[in-house]
């Protein structure tokens, strides 16, 4: 058979059934688009996680309360009141590698300013918290150690609060009320964006932790202690020393488990990356299932097509086509169908990824290399799907007896 006639014959057959070709290819389009979108979003999420971890601050160690045994039963991490303000002070003062330590307490409150109000998170922190988090002040100033000592009614606020409560006008020197308590705004934080968990970090008000503990939250224990270590090399040592110090302070016997958790930035990053990786795999597998279903659609349509075109096959055999020619024709039809779907799927997938990424405010997800790989792999996978699901119908067609096929009505 003439070589260039093979794709020609297959394309002609597909063109004769345009609607069916489109609908069948649609299955593959959706499958491939889903895979590409999921992988793209997964990549985006991973790089976002990485960036978030970097934004967490430099050389940060987080100490969480938790994993406390209650009558032999662990009641879970973060649930216990085991970290005190004194713990934070001890970490800061007694461990030479530690530069700063800020006991954190959070509460959700409504801020009232004039006739405006806004529900936000109020964080109690020490004066060096912004240094730990590498979070610059945009205007005004951060509260001082003195403010912390005196439990002053002062605060710095995030951009979201400025936007919502002051509608963009300068809030410095203004007073907001939290349950009747007047708090003076002395500084505005620069914009930070989304956090690891997807919350808007700019929706925040930071007050001295003394103020938060005594006058806002009513709690007496820290939810987290944010610790900054001198340099990266000292992280592991600092982690160890913090553990030893806290065990001593909490008077834990050697057989007792820690009632706190010390995590470095890397631990957090690893956990977050692992989570996003698992999510990517999970979503991509589900998308893969839809690609598989698309492949079954191809097989189904090709089988129907072979049955419908039995007479055509008979005629082709009669005028000189050999079994391999017929096999190849139907196989190429299936592959072309899948490749069409693959191309459509790539375009749709990339578009969907970009739209979602733009909406979520993520950075560009596909580098040129990743793009080439994604396109190449998708094309190869769709072709493979075509061969895999197209082979049986094609084989069936090639086995037809021309005499019987010609007589089919």
């Amino acid at each position, binding site marked *: *058979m*003439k070589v260039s006639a093979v794709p020609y014959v297959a394309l002609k057959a597909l063109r004769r059934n345009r609607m069916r070709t489109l609908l069948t290819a649609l299955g593959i389009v959706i499958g491939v688009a889903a895979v590409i979108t999921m992988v793209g979003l997964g990549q985006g999420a991973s790089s976002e996680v990485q960036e978030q971890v970097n934004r967490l601050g430099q050389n940060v160690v987080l100490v969480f309360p938790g994993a406390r045994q209650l009558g032999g039963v662990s009641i879970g991490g973060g649930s216990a009141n085991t970290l005190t303000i004194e713990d934070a002070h001890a970490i800061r003062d007694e461990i030479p590698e530690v530069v700063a330590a800020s006991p954190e307490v959070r509460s959700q409150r409504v801020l009232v300013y004039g006739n405006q109000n806004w529900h936000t998170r109020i964080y109690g922190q020490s004066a060096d918290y912004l240094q730990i988090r590498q979070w610059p002040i945009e205007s005004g100033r951060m509260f001082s150690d003195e403010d912390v000592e005196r439990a002053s009614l002062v605060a710095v606020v995030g951009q979201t609060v400025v936007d919502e409560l002051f509608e963009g006008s300068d809030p410095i020197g203004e007073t907001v009320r939290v349950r009747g308590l007047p708090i003076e705004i002395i500084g505005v934080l620069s914009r930070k964006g989304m956090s690891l968990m997807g919350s808007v970090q700019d929706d925040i008000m930071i007050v001295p932790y003394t103020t938060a503990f005594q006058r806002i939250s009513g709690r007496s224990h820290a939810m987290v202690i944010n610790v900054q270590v001198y340099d990266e090399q000292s992280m592991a040592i600092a982690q160890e020393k913090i553990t030893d110090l806290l065990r001593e302070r909490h008077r834990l016997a050697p057989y007792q488990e820690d009632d706190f958790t010390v995590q470095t930035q890397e631990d957090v990053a690893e956990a977050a990356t692992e989570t996003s990786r698992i999510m990517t795999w999970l979503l991509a597998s589900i998308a893969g299932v839809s690609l598989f279903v698309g492949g079954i659609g191809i097989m189904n349509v090709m089988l129907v097509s072979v049955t419908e075109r039995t007479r055509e096959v008979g*005629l082709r055999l009669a*005028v*000189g086509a050999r079994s391999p020619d017929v096999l190849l024709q139907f196989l190429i039809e299936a592959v072309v169908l899948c490749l069409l779907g693959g191309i459509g799927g790539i375009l749709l997938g990339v578009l969907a990824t970009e739209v979602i990424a733009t909406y979520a405010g993520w950075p560009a997800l596909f580098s040129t290399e990743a793009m080439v790989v994604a396109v190449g792999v998708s094309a190869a996978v769709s072709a493979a799907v075509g061969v895999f699901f197209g082979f049986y119908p094609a084989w069936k067609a090639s086995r037809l007896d021309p005499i019987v096929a*010609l007589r089919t009505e």
Partner: protein
Amino acid sequence: MAIVQLKGITRVYKSGSLAVEALRGIDLQIAEGNFVSIMGASGSGKSTLMNILGCLDKPTEGSYNLGGEDVSTFDKSRLAKIRNRMLGFVFQSFHLLPRTSALENVELPLLYSDDNLSWKEIHKRAREALEIVGLGDRTDHNPNELSGGQQQRVAIARALVSNPKILLADEPTGNLDSRTTLEIVELFQKLNKGGLTIIMVTHEPDIARFSNRIITLRDGLMSSDKTIEPLNALQALENWKDEEKIQQESEVQS
């Protein structure tokens, strides 16, 4: 030397323990340039004989020499090659590909040819074949835009396009009205005059009389083999036209 030589051809269909003898020993020679009709009641074995002549089926026993080659020993792939090179098929139900232009339908056998023709050559030959059957101005029409007679002409052009030695026609006029039938038979006679061997299965004696040899089968055996002086289809067509004219005139008068 005859172009077709059958010796002791039998064909037995087996299904389970049942064996049906469709052909029970056919000896037949057809000389090049002959126009042969094969007749017989249904079940007489004429379709089976046609399948064997057309290299679509192989005899159970006996030898089939086609153009100097013993094709009864050929495998499927070589038979396909023989069909492509030596034979042209015309069927009762035309067997044209739907939604495909006349030209592309005619090109079909050339796509499976081993000659590896250029696309230009393929288009040219298909156009020539359509001109031979008088459809040079219908190359772009799809089958559903053509009349039954025109569709059968496209099928004949398709059978002719690879310059076969033998044209095999299986009830070629079975789906056509009497005037179109005469036109097709007239085309056959014209092609036959040009040197093409034609073997035609038909159950209509009127049609068989336009060929120059009539073979009748009965129960898997040849029961008669007559060489006759064929009727002239062109003449018959003229007569038919005259009759129709007279009929129309009489209708107008009444």
